[in-house]
């Protein structure tokens, strides 16, 4: 029998890179502005907030969980951080507030899921409303201004690299190390791959899930602070829907919804692909409606490949 080419395996390993390289080449050919260094930096800057959220989201999806409250928790964290910055003038305290806000919401998600045995989907959906409500009460619906002190975080540069990009890369690297080289990372894959077996082998799965949500929440909170710095204000209406952009980045990057499969490296490429598409469509002056269609098809395509991969995995075993 001649060796069958396993499309799924190839896609897992190289597919995302192939899509990335193809899109990059096509984009640079159809628009002369695309390759400008400034533009490439812009793309990374524009995806920074969502990518940081997606770091946590990838971890959760690999562990067989999901967080639909990430977008509005990001909003909540950005408003709290803005509020603290305005009232205390302390940048450090503001960042800590944002991160802790995200962690607390993450812990609540984990608590609902492990203590009351709720589906992650439902628990985090409920938390979405809570986060939105608290944001509205806290801000009264109006933006919080006067955060000039944190401008460097949103608009500064280290060398030629914008600070948000540096922060994003640090987060990606940290989660990469965590998932690949630590015991905790092993548990992420083990719980996502086979929860019962992991539990039987003596791992406190419930506690682990809460820890995962706290880590993810901290990243969401940090993303909130960055969002606030980028907009130079705490905006109570911005952030809704970011969770789906983050999930899209993870899925396009090869993370499987069935759990146990996926890396933040893949997610980063996935996120850049989405950012690149948005950017080049803007450069080409394509109207928003068509942008939505292209984005939708991309997600569908990635999920089709995901399903195919699953079939391939079953065939292998």
């Amino acid at each position, binding site marked *: 029998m001649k060796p069958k080419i396993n499309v799924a395996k190839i896609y897992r390993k190289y597919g995302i890179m192939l899509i990335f390289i193809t899109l990059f080449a096509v984009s640079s050919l159809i628009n002369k*502005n695309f390759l*400008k260094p*400034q*533009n490439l930096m*812009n793309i990374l*800057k*524009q995806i920074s*907030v969502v990518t940081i959220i997606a770091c946590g989201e990838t971890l959760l999806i690999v562990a067989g969980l999901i967080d639909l409250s990430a977008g509005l928790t990001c909003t909540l964290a950005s408003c*709290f951080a803005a*509020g603290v910055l*305005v*009232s205390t003038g302390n940048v450090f305290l503001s960042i800590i507030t944002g991160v*802790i*806000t995200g*962690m*607390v919401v993450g*812990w*609540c998600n984990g*608590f609902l899921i492990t203590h009351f045995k709720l589906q992650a989907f439902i628990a985090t959906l409920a938390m979405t*409303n809570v986060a*939105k*409500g*608290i944001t*509205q*009460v*806290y*801000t*009264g*619906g*109006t*933006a*919080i*201004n006067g955060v000039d002190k944190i401008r460097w975080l*949103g*608009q500064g540069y280290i060398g030629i690299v914008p600070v948000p990009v540096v922060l994003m890369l640090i987060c990606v690297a940290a989660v990469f190390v965590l998932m690949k080289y630590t015991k905790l990372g092993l548990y992420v894959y083990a719980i996502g791959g086979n929860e019962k077996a992991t539990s039987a082998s003596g791992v406190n799965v419930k*506690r682990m899930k809460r820890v995962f949500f706290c880590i993810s929440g901290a990243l969401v909170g940090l993303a909130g602070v960055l*969002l606030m710095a*980028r*907009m*130079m*204000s705490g*905006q*109570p*209406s*911005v*952030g*809704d829907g970011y969770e789906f952009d983050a999930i899209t980045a993870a899925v396009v990057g090869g993370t499987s919804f069935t759990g146990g499969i996926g890396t933040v490296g893949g997610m980063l490429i996935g996120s850049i692909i989405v950012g690149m598409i*948005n*950017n080049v469509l*803007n*450069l080409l*002056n394509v*109207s*928003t*409606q068509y942008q939505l269609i292209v984005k939708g098809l991309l997600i569908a395509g990635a999920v089709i490949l995901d399903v195919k991969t699953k079939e391939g995995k079953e065939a292998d075993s």
Partner: protein
Amino acid sequence: MKKKCYKMAALGLAMGMLALTLTGCGKAAPESNSESNAKQEADGKQEESAPAQETGEEFVIGFSNMNDIYPYCIKFRDYLVEFAEAEGMKVLIADAAGDAAAQNGQVDNFILQGVDVVTAITIDLDASIPAVNAAENAGLPFISYLTNVRDNGGYDGYIYIGSENYEAGLLQGQYLAEVLPENAQILYQTGNPNDSQYSARKQGLLDGLAERPDVTIAAEVATMNQKDQGITVMEDWMQVYEKIDCVVAQNDDSILGAIEAMKAAGRFEDVITVGLDGSDDALVSIEAGELTMSVLQDAKGQAQAAVAIFKQLRDGADAASIEDANVPFQTITKDNVGDYK
């Protein structure tokens, strides 16, 4: 034991957050509103804005807001409650969160609660017809703000209070026709192209610019009236356009985002920027000499017009005899911003 400590610590943090929420940042809306706001959910639970004091003669208004995430909607709601309560009326509040079906349900609830008049920032000119019909069946006047329900929903007790979106766009266009240099290019950030508001504002802008055929709209992107999108789109545009003459947005958040992006890139010089809404942030920006011009959506004026109509109704006037009210938009520039702060 260790686990318990960990739980307690987390609980403590949660309490801390709650405390932070309740103390607020000093900008929060009046307390009654904030509280009702918190209890509302997306599917539209209802809350009373003031403690109920059933006297039997109290004039009760049921108000369904379009969406509590928009500063303008919140401003309008707060003015409406303030002015109505000053007249000794009671306002029941609900938030439809942008969902016409949820709003129609809220209107049904108001009718069951025995309100004297049903009012809403209605969501859609067609989808909101059932709400008007429900009011008609109950024999209650229906007052709609901003969105004029098609053909009054076929009800003569329907009253419209609004400011024409077309007129807002027209004011933007007329202003630009005056100030733009020869052959200027406009970059246009818009709201959701599915909304009737989008097409009305755009048509107004085009008509206002009609006498300036040299001016072109070089690019148009929907930023969904969000500040983050305003930043992103502007960053991309700065890669394409060597010189930026003028950026126009269909609301203030979006244009303030664009200004933020241009400032960050060091390219915010001699750019004419135009917004719409006259939000508090926009007024500050105009005063600082950054935003060139905005068009004020007069929430206060609209709420005053509404309460004036409530008074007529309370005094026994027939809703069918009350005229629709048009509250005009106002052009705000650095010259007159002081009058609106």
